[in-house]
């Protein structure tokens, strides 16, 4: 398993950089175009969720990619202080989209991390 870490400022102007980096990594690991389009949406919505619901932005996003033969696990951590409420998860369009497009989606409100998996179709 390879692990890649991306530490990037929590600023909306870097959203396209995060999408581009993620698509490049998934493309390198054999995911198809439809799967890569999903990844771009999921990763962007996670970062958007943090920007919209946790206003502090002095610290970075830390995005880790765990690359397996049959899947990639992505964890986005917002390193800023602050609290996320359960309510913010329930009323958010971002979360609806993330849940719909990812294969496995988990969140940890205390540590301000959201993790998702994307499986490679046809590889066990």
């Amino acid at each position, binding site marked *: 398993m390879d692990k890649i870490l991306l530490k990037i400022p929590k600023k909306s102007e870097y959203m*396209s950089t995060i999408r581009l980096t993620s698509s490049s990594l998934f493309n390198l690991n054999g995911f198809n175009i439809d799967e890569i389009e999903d990844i771009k949406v999921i990763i962007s919505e996670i970062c958007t969720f943090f920007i919209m619901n946790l206003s502090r932005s002095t610290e970075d996003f830390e995005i880790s990619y765990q690359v397996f033969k049959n899947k990639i696990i992505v964890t986005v951590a917002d390193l800023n202080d602050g609290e996320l409420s359960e309510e913010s998860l329930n009323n958010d369009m971002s979360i609806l989209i993330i849940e719909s497009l990812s294969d496995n989606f988990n969140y940890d409100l205390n540590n301000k991390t959201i993790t998702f998996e994307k499986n490679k179709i046809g590889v066990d």
Partner: protein
Amino acid sequence: MSLEIESKIQDSIIEIKPIGEVDIYTSPELKNQIFSLIEERNTSIIIDGESLEYIDSTGLGVLMSIYKKMQENSLNLEIINLKPNIYKLFDITGLNKVFNIRE
């Protein structure tokens, strides 16, 4: 890739063509430009998605606010030529049932 917005008036309808990506960074620009056009012209709008490569939930939120503004002014909003990956988000969020979308 960022966002460019082309617009033209044809048969008293404003055609707006976003080129590129609408996300949390670029969606305020889309909102401001379209709201200005609505204020100036007070006429129906077609949004052409032919060159729209990406949209996120903030972009969908902007489209919703445009839809509400148009409804308040009894004007029509139509969205055309969406790519399959973009339409998928309208489907997931149920907005395909709200907007008048055609191929």
